[in-house]
């Protein structure tokens, strides 16, 4: 029966080519526009650590005094050195990593190349297993290396390609600022998006949030070693009470600039850690170091949501695309209505010959679905063009933009779904055609 309806639908589409082309075009353009933006949204709002993000948390405490500029709705998005290090060294979580970014001058003594200015991530050894960071050569430094303030580093595959032509560079040395540092590990290509562990500060508006889709740092060093190696080059998120006495040296400055990430594998541990955090804040208040005892601990996805990592342009484009799809939908309902009711005579005959309302309805819907399918193919091609345009825009995420299988499926589901919705009302109208009236006018 379905095959017969399909044949009828094809016949009917051929009969009025102009109307068919108009409908298919409208669906294709609507689907193309909305799928382009939806694919970008899908990419930008994705889970950077699938399956694991629910166990990753971002604890916050509030070290600011009353007279700072920050309105105390939530604690600041980063921590001061002492709080972060206190919480980290308590080792109350399954894994914990301190995170700080800084610009640093890097050269390789064995390679004849001018020095590079790169971004270094100062972190602790748990960072790599906690965030499933893949290694090409070597491995992360050990906790002992971190404690001994060893001059070791892990480098990105990009930097390894640049300096060592992609060969195994473990054991080679790097000149990081004025220190010689031994490479212990080289990462495999790693491109988490969004760059979740750096996601801080977008609410201040100082940093455009496209910054969360750039590449990870090129050099990773043990936290405390890097404090010595790159002393004087650290940047505060914000300060109060006059700021640091020595710019770039923030260990004892009234500034927030360190982030702490923890992994908590069970709900009990999460509750325990929250209690630990509250305790810590209260204890610090008793000691006179804190004025406020608010704490907060969001999980990774909540944190990304709070930080609004998705660029507002992209959100706006998505809304626009769907408003556009709605217009296409209205357009299609109107045209389908015209198309079906034009065949009232034919439908009247079919009904008189014994076709049930249901079968007329099914036949009309089949036709709408077919238009959706053809429109979907057009929409898919237009989406590919749209994504090509996005890639040409040179946004930090443009190299990530592509259509995956799920988005391919969504394209067709959306196209056919929209057409079926658009077809439902006209099909219902068509199935209600009074046969007697139509037969009389024949």
């Amino acid at each position, binding site marked *: 029966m379905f095959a017969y309806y399909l044949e009828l639908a094809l016949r009917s589409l051929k009969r009025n080519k*102009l*109307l068919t082309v*108009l*409908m298919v*075009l*409208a669906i294709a*353009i*609507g689907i193309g*526009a909305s799928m382009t933006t939806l694919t970008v949204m899908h990419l930008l709002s994705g889970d950077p650590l699938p399956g694991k993000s629910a166990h990753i948390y971002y604890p916050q405490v509030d070290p600011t005094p009353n007279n700072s*500029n920050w309105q105390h709705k939530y604690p600041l998005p980063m921590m001061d050195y002492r709080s972060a290090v206190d919480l980290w060294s308590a080792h109350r979580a399954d894994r914990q990593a301190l995170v700080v970014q800084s*610009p640093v*001058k890097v050269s390789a003594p064995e390679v004849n190349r*001018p*020095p*590079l*200015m790169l971004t270094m991530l100062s972190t602790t050894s748990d960072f790599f297993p906690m965030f499933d960071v893949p290694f090409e050569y070597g491995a992360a430094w050990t906790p002992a290396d971190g404690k001994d303030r060893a001059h070791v580093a892990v480098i990105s595959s990009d930097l390894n390609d640049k300096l060592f032509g992609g060969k195994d560079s473990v054991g080679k040395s790097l000149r990081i600022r004025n220190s010689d540092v031994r490479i212990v590990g080289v990462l495999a290509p790693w491109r988490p998006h969004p760059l979740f562990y750096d996601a801080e500060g977008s609410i201040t*508006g*100082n940093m*455009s949030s*496209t910054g969360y889709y750039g590449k990870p740092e090129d050099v990773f060093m043990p936290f405390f070693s890097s404090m010595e190696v790159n002393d*004087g080059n650290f940047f505060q998120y914000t300060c109060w009470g*006059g*700021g*640091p*006495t*020595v*710019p770039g040296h923030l260990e004892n400055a009234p500034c927030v600039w360190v982030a702490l990430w923890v992994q908590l594998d069970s709900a009990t541990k999460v509750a325990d850690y929250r209690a630990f955090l509250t305790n810590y804040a209260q204890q610090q208040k008793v000691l006179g170091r804190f004025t406020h005892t608010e704490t907060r601990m969001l999980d990774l996805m909540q944190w990304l949501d709070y930080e609004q990592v998705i*660029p*507002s*342009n992209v*959100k*706006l*484009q998505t809304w*626009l*695309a769907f*408003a*556009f799809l*709605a*217009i*296409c939908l*209205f*357009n299609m*309902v*109107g*045209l389908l*209505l*015209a*198309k079906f009711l*034009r065949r009232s005579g034919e439908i009247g005959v079919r009904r008189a010959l014994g076709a049930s309302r249901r079968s007329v309805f099914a036949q009309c819907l089949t036709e709408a679905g077919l238009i959706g399918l053809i429109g979907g193919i057009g929409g898919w091609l237009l989406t590919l063009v749209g994504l090509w345009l996005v890639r040409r*825009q*040179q*946004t930090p995420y443009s190299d990530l933009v592509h259509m995956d299988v799920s988005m391919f499926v969504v394209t067709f589901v959306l196209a056919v779904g929209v057409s079926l919705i658009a077809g439902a*009302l006209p099909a219902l*109208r068509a199935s209600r055609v009074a046969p007697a009236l139509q037969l009389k006018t024949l």
Partner: protein
Amino acid sequence: MQIQPILAALKKHKLATFLIAMEIALACAVLCNACFLIANRLSAMHLNSGVDEASLGEIVVTGFDPKQATDLNARMLAGLGAIPGVESVHVISSIPFGPPAGTAGITLDRKHYNTVVEFYLGAPGTLKALGLKVVAGHVPAVDDYQPVEGHDYMPLSSRVLITSGLAERLWPGENPLGKEFWAAKYQFRVIGVVANLVMSQPQKFGNREPGWSVFVPTLPGGPLAGTYLIRAKPQVLNHVMVEARAAVAKVAPDAVLDHEDSHTVSFLRERFFKADRSMAGLLVGVIVALLAVTAFGIVGLASFWVSQRTKQIGIRRALGATRADILRYFQTENFLIVTFGIVVGIVLAIGINLALMKFFEVPRLPLWYLPVGVVALWLLGQLAVLVPALRAAAVPPVVATRSV
């Protein structure tokens, strides 16, 4: 033209009429808001930076030893100044559209935080090189330029120039000359007002205006090192910048050239507004597609109605209606439907604008956008209906005699 029969005919096709009107309503709402967004982006892109953009460029170097700052400045000034075509080289902390140099919260009474402003530190001569217009007070004298001591970010007590926009914000209606303000431990006294100088990353954020900047006369050295303002004739500037970038390797082998930021101001400006430009382009694309789809809908439905009413048209023609009458009938019908859609569309446009204001920091839609959108849709409707209406007008009266 009688509207009554048209309305009666439309009543028979309530659903189709309603649908096409709703499509026009949505189109009207999206059109007004999209045009407004484009206008917003374009006006942001036409931001007046206050400096002689066409003649300016900057060279940024990093990674040098801070102890060598004075020595580096001397080498860079000499090295860059020797490039043919360079009119002047000055040490500056940043330039508009360059990397952010220094923003800080300021206070007028040392108690209440007022707003965040950008501090530009510049060596003697910078003011003139930038091409800033001093509209009140005076340019800094030689002894207004002070060195930065120890680990400070700027001179502890400076005599500064502020933009007229900032003056209006801090002391509305008052003479800002001689007034004082603070940022943490640093004290500032206003000695002059410049017409305009935008922040290095001039984005509107909250109630902060992009033109709220402070120029702090500073002697080079300490933190004021590594960024150099180059002035050259616009015709040779690009060439000068190529040579300047190349010169860094020879003049300052101990420093690393910042390839990202060492460009002409025009280039940096282009880059800064790239997202706005591509968004505006995208919006234009959406508007075109939107109008096209709406026109398709009108053409499709009007064609259907024309073919459905062929017989009636024939009868009217046979009864003496002229071609112009038939043409006008369909045009009036379209006008009525579009008008109905527009009425709903205006309400929707204002609603969408309110939502955008809430979620995307978009200003209020000026009301004059609405009549413009209305006229555009009326014209679109009339154009779209023209082809089917002409076909209707071409129906010969003899049709009426057939198959009756």
